[in-house]
Structures are given as structure tokens and as C-alpha cells.
């Protein structure tokens, strides 16, 4: 994947490069708004990491320009401004995610992976995490490339979890997917989750429960 980093602090730019290159990415870093803008006009990137406080212009302006052109390259905003207003403004202008400085590199890597996965899924219509894959066109789930014979609700559950893969899938969302808007018992969802857990045993994936909040499909640490 080709990543574009727009960041004027050399220390941060270097650590971004060092953190993201081992994940199989090519990283190009620019320290100025004008250079980055020119590069974006001539080249295609898979993800832009954008610092808002550039010395020669406003990062939000660059973002606006990009979206104005109809360019849908995912953008992750990095900024030391932590005001909610800035965050809302950035997301309004079409940023895909937002990370306030200082951030941990682990957090950054997770966000980058999620954004790249999401943009990849937009392209091939498949939701994927580890060995689990859901083809949203065919409506089929695969584990280790073997199609799973599953009832409708379990398929809906897999799709819901994969849509948020790596993040918590809120339980309200999952309940609506599985049971519609009707009243459901508090344990109905839990029944389906435990069935799915059994199927995923030994697949390198697990479902973590967040009490009252939802479930997260994640890769089990080796």
C-alpha cells in the first residue's frame, strides 16, 4: 500500500515511516502543504496521514481540496489541537478518522490497518478478518476459504461483526440486524454469539464481550 504522510515535525515523520513500512507499506513523507497537494494531484495513494498544523497552510484546506476533486482516498487526521470543534470540522470535510497528538504507535497502526481494510473492502465487496471472510454480494461466509453453511441470523451476525472488525460492534446494532426492531430478550444475542464462538475455535479469531456495549471480533494474540 502507498501511504502519504504530511507532517512537518521530522521526529514524528520518521517514527511514522518506521512504524508503517514494516507493515508492508511504502511511505512518502512531505513537510509542506504545497508539495503534498501536488503529489496528491499526480499520484494515487491508498491512505493519507494528514497533520492539521502545517507551516504553509491549513491541513483542513488540503482535505477540502481533495474531496472537492472527488478523490475518496481515506484520510486520517493527526493533530495537536484536541478541540471537539476541530474534530467535527475535519470529519465534516470528509476525513475518515482522527487521532489527537500525542498518540501511541500501537493505536496508530490499528487505525491505519482498519482504514486500509475498509477501503479494500469497498473495492472487492468482501469483508475480511484473518481466516474469516464474508462475501456481501453472494451472502456467503468463508472460514479458511471453506464456505460455511449457516442460518440467516448467524450470517447477519458475522457480517455485523466484520463490518466493525477490530472495533466494538455495538449490541443495539447487532440486535437490529438479527431481530429487527422487535422486543428481544437480553440473552437472545448472547446465544448466537456463543454459537459463533464455537465455530471460530482454532481459527485464530475470537469474540470479546464488552458488558452492555457490544462485541469485538479480534485476532487472538498468538
Amino acid at each position: 500500500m502507498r501511504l502519504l504522510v504530511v507532517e512537518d515535525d521530522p521526529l514524528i515523520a520518521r517514527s511514522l515511516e518506521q512504524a508503517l513500512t514494516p507493515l508492508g507499506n511504502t511511505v512518502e513523507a512531505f513537510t509542506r502543504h504545497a508539495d503534498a497537494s501536488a503529489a496528491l494531484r499526480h499520484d494515487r495513494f491508498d491512505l493519507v496521514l494528514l497533520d492539521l498544523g502545517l507551516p504553509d497552510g491549513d491541513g483542513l484546506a488540503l482535505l477540502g481540496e481533495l474531496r472537492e476533486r472527488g478523490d475518496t482516498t481515506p484520510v486520517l487526521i493527526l493533530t495537536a489541537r484536541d478541540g471537539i470543534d476541530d474534530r467535527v470540522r475535519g470529519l465534516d470535510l470528509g476525513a475518515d478518522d482522527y487521532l489527537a497528538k500525542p498518540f501511541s504507535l500501537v493505536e496508530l497502526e490499528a487505525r491505519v490497518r482498519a482504514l486500509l481494510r475498509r477501503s479494500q473492502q469497498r473495492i472487492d465487496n468482501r469483508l475480511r478478518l484473518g481466516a474469516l471472510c464474508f462475501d456481501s454480494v453472494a451472502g456467503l461466509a468463508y472460514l479458511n476459504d471453506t464456505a460455511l453453511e449457516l442460518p440467516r441470523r448467524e450470517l447477519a451476525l458475522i457480517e455485523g461483526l466484520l463490518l466493525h472488525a477490530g472495533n466494538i460492534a455495538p449490541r443495539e446494532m447487532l440486535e437490529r440486524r438479527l431481530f429487527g426492531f422487535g422486543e428481544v430478550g437480553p440473552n437472545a444475542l448472547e446465544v448466537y454469539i456463543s454459537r459463533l464462538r464455537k465455530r471460530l475455535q482454532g481459527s485464530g479469531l475470537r469474540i470479546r464481550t464488552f458488558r452492555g456495549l457490544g462485541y469485538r471480533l479480534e485476532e487472538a494474540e498468538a
Partner: protein
Amino acid sequence: MIVVDGTLKTRLALWLLATVASLGLLLLVEAYLSATRAAERAYDSQLEAAALTIAEAVQWQDGQPLVEIPLAALQIIATRHQERVFYAVLDARGEPLSANLDLAIEKRWRDAAAERPSWHDADHRGQPWRLHGREFDSAGWETQDPVQIWVGHTLAGRRSLSGELFEHAVTRFLAMVLVAGLLMFLAMRVALAPMRRLRHQLRRRAADDMRPLDARVPRELQELAETLDNLFARQRNSRDALLRYTADASHQLKTPLAGLQSASELALKSEDPNAWRRALGEVHDGAARTSRLANQLLSLARLRHVADASRLAPVDLGALLRETLLEWADRDLAGAHDLGLAPLPARPVLVPGEPWALRELLGNLIDNALRYTPPGSEITLGLNDEEESVELYIEDDGPGVEPSRLARLHQPFERGGRQDTEGSGLGLAIVDSIARRHGAEWRVENRTPHGLRITLRFRRLPGASVA
């Protein structure tokens, strides 16, 4: 915002002008009346003098009055203007013995004049006249019929005299207005001088000069001056608090920075890669602690110095709680804890609030719980919906806090006696600030057998509709 609504000078001047104008109108009416009255009196006595002069010239011969009109009498009543004059001497039957005009004297006037000398206004050939008549008896041995002497003139003389008198009065009045206006202007300057002095003093003040005012002011300005002093005092206090806070904050920042410095310095001196590794770990932790501290100091400063409670709008506390908790549960920091949400009330729970501040409040509560409890601890947040209020709580099954320290937890840089965590001791100070902004009461208590529970009680907005 300051809206300029006219000037004090204009306002004073307008009122004074209105007063002077209405007084002036009264004075002018009075002056006109008295001028007219004076002219009347003067000319009436001239008519009387003329009539007496004529009376003296009446001679009696064989019981018949002989009238020779003396020139002096006519001169008396003919004023310097082109005044027309009239005289007549009538016998007892009212027939003229001598007259210069055919001006008829009415019977009732003659009767009145028989009683005592009298004055009348008459109209002759379209012109107003003033007439005076008196009866005259001969002072002799033989009794004669009395004669009546009538004199009169047109009104030109009177009018010109009263006009002249009135003019003088008006001139005097205008001069008075002029002098009064001048004095008023000076008086306004003198009266407004304290305000000007106060203004100059305020303008000369240095931006950071918060000392009380040192000015002599009249009683009317006392309240304003005291209010200003009060404002200065409050600013002084808030500046002092800010200075204290900045000093505290830089002291707090210095501690982890010193750690960073010494750890890196030691590593640079060492040749042992294991020591570098250890030092790098320490540097990383130190940097994380410092940046968290900087963030908290910033939000506390913002909370303390943006004391604008007017922006409170209805917020669905349940939705906000779920949203914030989802975000926190996803973070790396929460990976080792069991962070959960108790079932929320079915209806929306609306409280007046600022969403960013409430998110900050929840964030600090969660962050504190994660940092001050061992991995694997259960942390639960929830809402208890009551009739008038709503209770937001966070509880954990960690070690709790020593009872003697519970009351001091909301003070900045208070860590509940713990030195073993990355905490800065600012979290609950921020919570306290935000709770105050929202008029919420909060309390901390230990749970049995162990753990901590923090409860915040918010005022609930009536109705369940989300704005």
C-alpha cells in the same frame, strides 16, 4: 456590548432647554400683559389731565357755559404719533356745546360719568378709541347745570408704548437666556469633570494593573467606581489563581521531565544495551505520562477560564454515556480491564449540559478507573433515572481509597495517596470543575468488600423528547 445612547450633555441640555422654554413662555406672556397695562395707565392719566385742563377753561356767562378749548389740553392727548384726538363738552341734556368730531357719547356712559370720572373703549368709523369723561360743576353762588367734558384719542400711542415696553422685556429675557446657557455649559463641564477624570485614569492604567481605583468621585459615581473596583478585585483574584495554577502546573510538568532527562542521560553514559533498553522503556512511560498531564492541564485551564454556563443545551446522557464508553472500551488502555455499561433506562435521559465537557468528565472518570485499578478489574458505568434528577455512577472492584483521603480527592494534584500509577492527580479536579459547571453534586465512597464508587447527581430536564 456597549451601545452609545446619546450623550449626558445633550440629555442635560435638552431638559434645561425645555425648562427654560416653558418658563420663558410664561415670562413673555406676563411681560406682554404688564407692558399693555402700563401703557394704558400712562395714557389714561394723560386723558384725565387733558379733561381737567379743559374743565378749568370752562367759563360761565349768564348761566350759560362758554367753552374755549385750550391748546395745551389738545397737546396733552395728542401723542407724538399721528394720533387723532377728540374732545366734546356736553350740556346737561347731552347736547354738545363744543366738539371736534361727531362721536356719539352713549347715554349710559354719560350716566356713569355723572357719578364719577370714567373711561370707555369706543369704536368710531372703524377705529378703536379710548374715551374719558367727567362732569364738571361751576363753583359759584348761582347753581348751574353741570357740563360733561369728554376727551379721547386713537390707540396708536398706547400700542407703540406697550410694544416698546414689551420689546425691552424680550431683550432682557434673551440676554438672560444667553447668560444662563453659558453658565449651564460651564456647570455641565464642572459637573461632568469627575467622570472625565475617571475616564482618563482608566485609560492610563496599564493592562495588568488591578489595583483599586484611587479617585475622588461624587456620590452618584460611587456605585460605578465601587463596581469597577470589585471587577478589578475579581480579576486580581483570577489572575492570582491563574499564576498559582501555572506555577503548580509547571512544577508538575518538571517532575516527569526531570525523570526523562536523567533516564536518557544515564543511558547515554552506559555501554550496556540492556541498560539502554530499560532506559528507553522508562523514557517512553515518562513521555506518555507527560503528554497526558499536558492534556489534562489544558482541559482544566480551559474549564476554569471559560466560565460561560449559558451554552447548556439538552443532552441525552444515556446516548452520550454509551458513545463515550464505546470509544474508551476500544482503546488499547482498556484492553486488560473488564469495562462495561449497566442496562440504560428505556427513555432518553435529558440533562442540561455541554456535550464536550460531559465527554471530558466521563473520559476522566474512566481513565482514572483504568489507571488506579489492577488489570482484570471490573469497571461498570450506569445511570439511575429518578423523577427530578439522574444519577450517573462509575464503580470498580479495585483497592478503593483510604477513608481519610476521600474528602481531598477533588483537589488538583491529589493522587489518593498513590504514587504507583501514571496518574497526575488532575482527573477528579477536572470532574469537579465540570460537575460545578453543570450544577451537579458528586460524591466518592468506598464499596464493600473493596472498590470505589463515584456518583454524580444531575438535574433532569422534564419530558422525554430529544431536542
